[in-house]
């Protein structure tokens, strides 16, 4: 029996190796686990959603709800898996839920403390130094906010900056700078399974079935004994 099992075991082992080798270690290796991340960007709130393996969720529906569960806005993701909403006029934690079809769903909670305060947003529209921020909701996080600062040491700074405007500027600048970092962190989370996890899982399976084999062998050894007695 043992000899008979060898070719089959060898074939199935080869199949397992064939399945593992070409794709398992590359970015293309992925299956459907969904992630979503949202962050404030200027006067908008943007969300990125990925499948594991960093493949963007294209055409997924992202819904923004407040603390009570009321739907504030809803939109469909673009080819990059991104979607942006105008900052809702509410002081509430926001939950973003992405539905990627076929039962794939993920959510993300954006706390109110991470959102720019409404009063600052409203006041930010007036200072001349910030005009470019408000008018560019679709800018990339790398450029949003930076345009408002004059480049070079010789450039003129606004002569009068009140405290509120300064605070708004700092907030928006921080938001612009931290957005890509937060995005990178999400992408890291959305990476597919690592070699460690794959090999670990195979080890678990070998162990579990080894245990089953041992149990089965022990039961088989026990069964004939009553007959002999």
């Amino acid at each position, binding site marked *: *029996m043992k000899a*008979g*099992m060898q*070719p*089959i*075991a060898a*074939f*199935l*082992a080869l*199949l*397992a190796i064939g*399945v*593992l080798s070409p*794709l*398992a270690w590359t970015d*293309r*290796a*992925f*299956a*459907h*686990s*969904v992630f979503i991340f949202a962050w404030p960007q200027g006067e908008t709130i943007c969300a990125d959603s990925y*499948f*594991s*393996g960093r*493949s963007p969720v*294209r055409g997924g529906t992202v819904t923004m709800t407040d603390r009570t569960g009321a739907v504030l806005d809803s939109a469909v993701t673009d080819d990059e898996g991104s979607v942006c909403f105008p900052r809702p006029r509410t002081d509430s934690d926001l939950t973003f839920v992405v539905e990627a*079809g*076929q*039962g*794939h*769903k*993920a*959510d993300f909670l954006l706390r109110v403390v991470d959102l720019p305060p409404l009063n600052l947003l409203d006041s930010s529209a007036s200072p001349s130094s910030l005009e470019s921020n408000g008018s560019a909701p679709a800018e990339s996080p790398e450029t949003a906010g930076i345009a408002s600062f004059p480049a070079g040491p010789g450039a003129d700074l606004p002569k009068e900056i009140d405290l509120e405007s300064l605070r708004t500027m700092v907030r928006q600048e921080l938001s612009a700078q931290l957005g890509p970092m937060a995005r990178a962190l999400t992408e890291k989370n959305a990476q*597919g*399974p690592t070699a460690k*996890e*794959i090999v*670990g*899982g*195979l080890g*678990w*399976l*070998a162990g*579990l*079935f*080894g245990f*089953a*084999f041992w149990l*089965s*062998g022990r039961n*088989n050894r026990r069964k004939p004994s009553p007959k002999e007695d």
Partner: protein
Amino acid sequence: MHISEGVLSAPVLLTGAVLTAGGLWAGLKSLRSEDIPKASILSAVFFVASLIHVNIGPSSTHLILNGLIGVLMGLSAFPIIFLGLLLQGILFNFGGITTLGINTFNMAFPAVLFGILLRAPINSKNSVISTVGSYLGGSLPVLASGLLVASSLYLTGSQFLLVSYEVLIGNLPVVLIEGFVVLFCIRFLKKVRPEVLATSPLGQTTEPASA
């Protein structure tokens, strides 16, 4: 195919868990000692098959290989797929723990069903019937699993036609590819160890368990 946490309603989850528990009990009972190494390797194959990403056109999905398991192992597909899904859930974050029952049922039940139904055609001496049977043994279970996923979502409130369309279109490449995978495997096994196919699925448990 892996339904995430928080998508399905409690009755659907519970029904899936109960059906899977029954399947596990029957599957473990039908698993013979000499088939354990085969089950182990098939479970490993299932565990890593989801990493093979099929990306044709706008859809992107992954291999499932439940048909192969059903054809080779019959009822034992339940414990094999259950363990694969459990480890995928824990280690890869695919699916989830609460959806383990329904996900196992959705993938294992078609595997068992078609594994049994197609056993005769697959073992037929007529090569055309055997080839068609083998191909269907790989593709039909994926198709049926897709419909079960759509049904699970429908029972929770999604629009059946919309979800079915999504699932079917999304998995169409896998349906077609898995037919060839199983066809290739069966042809190979027929050449190397034909008795594996003749004795594997349900009904061939030669040792009477109750006697």
